[in-house]
C-alpha cells in the first residue's frame, strides 16, 4: 500500500524520481531527529544570533504611518540579517543539518540571488563545497549577486534551459541532485518542492513570526491586525505568518507578483491566476496551460518570478486563513522608491510588493490598528534594475 506524506490539505506530497526517494527519506529522518535535539538547536540559535544578527528588529515606521494616516505600521527587518535577507534563517538550519548528516557539498537554486548568496555564505562558514544554479536571465538581472557568490567560494552555473529563470534553476538543481546524492545536500530555498522541504523550510523561517509576535506584544501589548509579506515560493511569508495562524483575528496577506497585471500573460501571480497541478515535487497551484504545460511567468522581481507556490500557502488559501493579493511591477517599483524616500529603508524589490499592498491597505484602517510588513530583504541588489526600469542606464 502506498502512502503519501507531507500533505497540506490536497497539496504537497513527494512527486520526485525514484532515484531521489531514499535521499528524501534520509533527510526526513535526520530532520525528525535533529529538530528536537537540544545540541542542534543550541548550535543553530548561536549561529542565528551571533552570525546572522538575530533577532531582527521590529521597527515602528512612524513617518510612514503618519504619511499614510491610517493603521500603525511596523516593519519586520529581515533586511538587516547577515547577507541581507531572510534566506539566511533557512540556510543556516539546512547547512547545519546537512553537516550533521555527513554531507560535504551543498547545491542550491536561486532567483534574485539572495538564497544563492546565503547558501554560499553558509558553505564558506562551514567549510562545505557549494554550487548554485541560477537562470541565465537572472545572472544578468542580478550580476552583483553572482559576483558575491563567487567571492564566497561558490561555483555559479547559469541555467540556459526554458525561460532561464528561477523555475529552470530549480529543475537543474534537482537534475544535479539525482546525479550526485551521497555527499550532496540540496539546500532548497523556499517552502516548496517535495516533502519534507516545505516543512523544514517553514520551521526554519518561523523564527520571523516567533520573534515578531513577542516583539509586538512587548511594544503594543496586543497582536497585529494584519501581517503582510511577499510570496514567490513563499518562505518569508510562511515564516511571517506561521505563529499567527491560530490567531484568527490576525489577517494574513501574501502579496504575489502580478508582473504587468493578472489579466496579462506576463504575470507570476500563482494563486490568482494558476490552478491545481503537480510540479517540482509537489501538488499545489501553478501557472500552466490547459494541457498542464508550465507557463513562462514574468515579474520584475527575480525572486518572485516562479510559476508555483508552496503547498502550505495553497492550503491556507483553500481554507480562507490567508489572502493572496496581486501586486504589479509598477506598484512595487513605486513602493520601492516610496519607502526609500520616506523611511530611508531601501527594500528588496520582492519585499516592495508587500510594501505596495500596505500602502493601499493602511489608509483604509483606523489609527488604532496595527500592520506588520515583513521587509524580507534589502534593495541594494535591485538599484541598477530599478534605475533601468525608470529609463536610467547605470553601471553596477
Amino acid at each position, binding site marked *: 500500500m*502506498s502512502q503519501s506524506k507531507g500533505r497540506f490539505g490536497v497539496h504537497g506530497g513527494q512527486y520526485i524520481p525514484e532515484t531521489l526517494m531514499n535521499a528524501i527519506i534520509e533527510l526526513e529522518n535526520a530532520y525528525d531527529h535533529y529538530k528536537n535535539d537540544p545540541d542542534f538547536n543550541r548550535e543553530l540559535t548561536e549561529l542565528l544570533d551571533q552570525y546572522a544578527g538575530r533577532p531582527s528588529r521590529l521597527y515602528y515606521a512612524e513617518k510612514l504611518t503618519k504619511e499614510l494616516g491610517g493603521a500603525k505600521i511596523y516593519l519586520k527587518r529581515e533586511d538587516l540579517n547577515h547577507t541581507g535577507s531572510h534566506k539566511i534563517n533557512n540556510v543556516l538550519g539546512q547547512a547545519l543539518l546537512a553537516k550533521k548528516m555527513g554531507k560535504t557539498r551543498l547545491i542550491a537554486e536561486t532567483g534574485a540571488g539572495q538564497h544563492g548568496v546565503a547558501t554560499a555564505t553558509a558553505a564558506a562558514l562551514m567549510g562545505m563545497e557549494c554550487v548554485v544554479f541560477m537562470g541565465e536571465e537572472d545572472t544578468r538581472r542580478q550580476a552583483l549577486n553572482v559576483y558575491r557568490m563567487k567571492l564566497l567560494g561558490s561555483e555559479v552555473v547559469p541555467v540556459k534551459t526554458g525561460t532561464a529563470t528561477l523555475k529552470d534553476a530549480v529543475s537543474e538543481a534537482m537534475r544535479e541532485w539525482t546525479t550526485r546524492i551521497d555527499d550532496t545536500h540540496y539546500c532548497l530555498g523556499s517552502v516548496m518542492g517535495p516533502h519534507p522541504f516545505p516543512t523544514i523550510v517553514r520551521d526554519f523561517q518561523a523564527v520571523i513570526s516567533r520573534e515578531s509576535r513577542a516583539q509586538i506584544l512587548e511594544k503594543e501589548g496586543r497582536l497585529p491586525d494584519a501581517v503582510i509579506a511577499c510570496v514567490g515560493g513563499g518562505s518569508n511569508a510562511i515564516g511571517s505568518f506561521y505563529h499567527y495562524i491560530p490567531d484568527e483575528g490576525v489577517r494574513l496577506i501574501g502579496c504575489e507578483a502580478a508582473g504587468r497585471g493578472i489579466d496579462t500573460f506576463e504575470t507570476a501571480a500563482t494563486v490568482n491566476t494558476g490552478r491545481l497541478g503537480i510540479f517540482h515535487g509537489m501538488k499545489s497551484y501553478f501557472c500552466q496551460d490547459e494541457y498542464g504545460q508550465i507557463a513562462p511567468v514574468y515579474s520584475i522581481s527575480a525572486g518572485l518570478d516562479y510559476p508555483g507556490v508552496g503547498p502550505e500557502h495553497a492550503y491556507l488559501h483553500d481554507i480562507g486563513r490567508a489572502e493572496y493579493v496581486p501586486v504589479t511591477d509598477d506598484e512595487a517599483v513605486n513602493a520601492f522608491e516610496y519607502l526609500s524616500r520616506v523611511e530611508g529603508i531601501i527594500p528588496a524589490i520582492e519585499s516592495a510588493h508587500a510594501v505596495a499592498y500596505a500602502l493601499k491597505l493602511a489608509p483604509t484602517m483606523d489609527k488604532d490598528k496595527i500592520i506588520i510588513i515583513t521587509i524580507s530583504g534589502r534593495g541594494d541588489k535591485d538599484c541598477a534594475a530599478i534605475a533601468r526600469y525608470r529609463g536610467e542606464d547605470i553601471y553596477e
Partner: protein
Amino acid sequence: MSNIRSAFNNGKAFIPFITCGDPDLETTAKVVRAAAENGADLIELGIPFSDPTAEGPVIQGANIRALKGGVTTDKIFDFVAKLRKDVKIPMVFMTYANVVFSYDAERFMARCCETGIGGIILPDLPFEEKGEFSAVAKQYGIDLISLIAPTSEDRIAMIAKEAEGFIYVVSSLGVTGVRSEIKTDLSHIVKLIRDNTSVPCAVGFGISTPEQAKKMAAVSDGAIVGSAIIKLLEKYGRDAAPYVGEYVRSMKDAVSSAE
C-alpha cells in the same frame, strides 16, 4: 492487465523511446513504423512536458521542439488512434504527472484504453504517490510502470511486489542521456527484483551502443534507448525514419544475441 507482457515473448526486448511531435507528428508516425518494422518489441511514446526534470539535454531538446511545433495531449491521442490501425506492437506513454493530472487522470486512462496504449511511465511519480493514479489506471486496464533506481536498495522489494507490465530499471544516477560507461551492479538489482516478482524488467538510461544494449539485456529482459534515437531525430529531422529503422535493427540484433 495490458498487452505489455507480450513484448517480452520474442527473446530479449528492445524498447525505443520517441517523443511525439518531434519535430512533427508525421515524422513521429514514420519513425514509429520504421522502429516496429525493424524489430522493436515495445514503443515508449513521450508526451512532451515543458519542464522535464528527469531528462538530460537531448530529450529536453526534443520536448521543446515538439511543444514549439504545437503538439498537445489531444493531438497525440488522435495520432495514436490513427497509428494503431497498422502498428500492432505494444505501446506505452512516458510523460510527467502534471500532463496526466491536468488532463484528468480518468479521462486520460480512458483514452489510453481506447487507443491501445498499454501502460504509462511517470518518472516524477514514486511508489508513495502512485495511489492517486493506479486505481483509475487499473479500472481501464492500463499498467502504471514502476521505476527502480540504483539508489532504491531497500525499496526494491516493495516496488517490485506491486509492479505491473514491466519494471523500468534506471541504469545509473542522474538524468537520461548517453553515457560512455554504466557502472551500477545491475545484476544485483535485477536479482532482488526477480526474488519478488515475475514481471519482466528492462534497463534504460545511458544506453546507446549495441554493445551496451547487449550487456544490459544479458542481465535483464531488455534494453530501453531514448537519447540515442532522439539524436538521430535531431540530426536528420523529418528524414530520420530510415536511420532510426537501421539503428533499431542493430540494437534488436544486439539484445537478441545476449544470453
